[in-house]
């Protein structure tokens, strides 16, 4: 699972109003190089919750993202490279996603988060 997906996922349990962002507890992750596409980054940037991305990047020991970001920073080559790396090149393989409200954990195995809910959570 890339951090791009983590940034889109929120907790789906019935009654949870504030299920975003899911806390990332990463145990194992890998980095795979992907070609940088600046257009895509500019396109996706407004949809990214920056705080959640920076937080998730710290969970996988990548601390080179600034705390705050705005659209003007997209002109900087250096910023784009870091943004790209955090968003698309880090794959979390093992770990868990934890709902911020209920503390329910969704395990990640082989890079696939298990988001199945129990019957009483639907």
């Amino acid at each position, binding site marked *: *699972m*890339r951090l*791009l*997906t983590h*940034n*889109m*996922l*929120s*907790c*789906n349990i019935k009654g949870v109003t504030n*299920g*975003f962002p899911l806390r990332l507890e990463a145990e194992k992750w890998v980095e795979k190089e992907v070609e940088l*596409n600046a*257009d*895509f980054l500019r*396109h*996706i940037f407004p*949809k990214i*919750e920056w705080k959640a991305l920076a937080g998730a990047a710290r969970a996988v020991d990548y601390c080179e993202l600034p705390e705050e970001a705005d659209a003007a920073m997209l002109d900087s080559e250096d910023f784009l490279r870091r943004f790209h790396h955090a968003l*698309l090149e880090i794959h979390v393989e093992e770990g868990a996603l934890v709902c911020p409200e209920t503390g329910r954990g969704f395990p990640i195995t*082989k*890079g*696939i*988060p*298990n*988001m*199945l*809910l129990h*019957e009483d959570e*639907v």
Partner: protein
Amino acid sequence: MPRPEVQAPPEIFYNETEARKYTTSSRIIEIQAKISERALELLALPNDGLPRLLLDIGCGSGLSGETLSENGHHWIGYDISESMLNVALEREAEGDLLLADMGQGLGLRPGVVDGAISISAVQWLCYADKSSHEPRMRLKAFFGSLYRCLARGARAVLQLYAENMDQSEMIMMYAMRAGFAGGIVVDWPHSSKARKAYLVLTCGPPSIQSYLPKGKGEDGAMCSEDEESDDDGNQTVGIYDRTRPKKKAKINKNGKGKEWVFKKKEQMRKKGYSVPPDTKYTARKRKAHF
């Protein structure tokens, strides 16, 4: 062979052996690729070469996702079958995979996705595989969450094999209730095997964007020989087993009993029917008068 939907729930039906077919059978691979290409075409993304973030609902072994990757898009795939996702890992699917049940809602932030495709998956929602499953509620949860996560003006193309008219009407009704505009595009309507129905939905109010494209072969043209022999490979087309195999009812000599009646009434209540209240008279045994 009856339809897969009537045999077992998806997480059971798509087991190791069934999943294996999706790597070994070149025919299945080819058909899946063809359907997903058509779905992507119906998605009508602006032709500017910009990669988008798409959803693949019921991605299975990632065959449909491969088409998306080939076109440069990023995608998030949902599937309920672990075996199928393992195959997707083997095939090195480029999108992110989630083990999730679409009937429980997608759990995405609002307005973040640029489009969604789904190949032969949504009809599974019409079957109640557990006592807690309620097809109407599951359809509502699915379309509601899909509508929320799509960006304004984005489209969703859902290829599906409805068992009968009632099913496709029910699916359509819940899509409309969620706020979608759109309709069904049928490719090769005159062929029993090559016939494919696509639910093309647009998020947001009706506009020029929400016009429906024409299905292939609607003017009576027949598809070519090799396409004619197609079917989905999991043999869901052209087989008419209209009823689910009946469960054997457990009846003892005292009849089905009070609990059974209460359970049935509760089920009907959940479905939204008006049901008389439970009283001491409910399911009471009649006296033998003679």
